[in-house]
């Protein structure tokens, strides 16, 4: 599935990283606990989170995560957008809850990391 498909499925709005919308994704990990995200050993997955802060983007940077989906229309600060852009991270915001985003994407074939 492309990130563009993901975006459409969750009625998402792209904040930055549009150039990655045609990338393919097969796995996702949903968490509000950055400490947990930092223990994930694989690279090519999308992070689905309800946590909208700068450290969320830093965590993605360190973990080589290129795609972040933020649930519940949480506001993205300029600093977050700048840091995500700097690291070529695609940032999508969805009005749906973490549960709904995860459920829709799981039903559409996105696999869990664990």
């Amino acid at each position, binding site marked *: 599935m492309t990130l563009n498909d993901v975006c459409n499925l969750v009625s998402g709005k792209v904040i930055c990283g549009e150039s990655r919308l045609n990338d393919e994704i097969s796995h996702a990990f949903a968490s509000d606990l*950055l*400490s*947990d995200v930092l*223990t994930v050993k694989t690279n090519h997955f999308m992070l689905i989170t309800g*946590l909208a802060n700068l*450290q969320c983007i*830093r965590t993605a*940077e*360190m*973990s080589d995560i290129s795609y972040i989906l933020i649930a519940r229309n949480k506001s993205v600060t300029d600093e977050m957008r700048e840091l995500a852009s700097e690291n070529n991270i695609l940032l999508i915001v969805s009005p749906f809850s973490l549960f709904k985003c995860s459920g829709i994407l799981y039903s559409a074939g996105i696999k869990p990391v664990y």
Partner: protein
Amino acid sequence: MYFEYFVEGGDFTNAGYASSQIKKHLKELGVDPSVIKRSVIALYEAEVNIVAHAYRGKIKIFINKNGVKMLLEDEGPGIADVGLAMKKGFSTASEAVREMGFGAGMGLPNINENSDSFNIDTVVGKGTTLEIIINF
């Protein structure tokens, strides 16, 4: 190569800056991506620990052809029971730190898991020094 960074306790806006810079340097040096990831995750966990627990700290990074040595020296409360701190799930982090997505008692064990050598030197009431070594 040697790099040095200062970290302010409580400054979550800049937490991760040093780790980000080191990631760029390791990339420029052509280090294997999986080794870069282990290095920067260990460093980032340790950097966040200074921000979350200490008053201030200094990060010293030594890179040579064999690997990277990272020293994180902080002035802070120290760790009363290192054995307990190394246990998954144990944390003394504040509610504010937990709200940011940290403080789940996973940091030190994760540093240990990602490093080839990990030492903690701590004095209660003075501070903590972490030595993390990752081989290329």
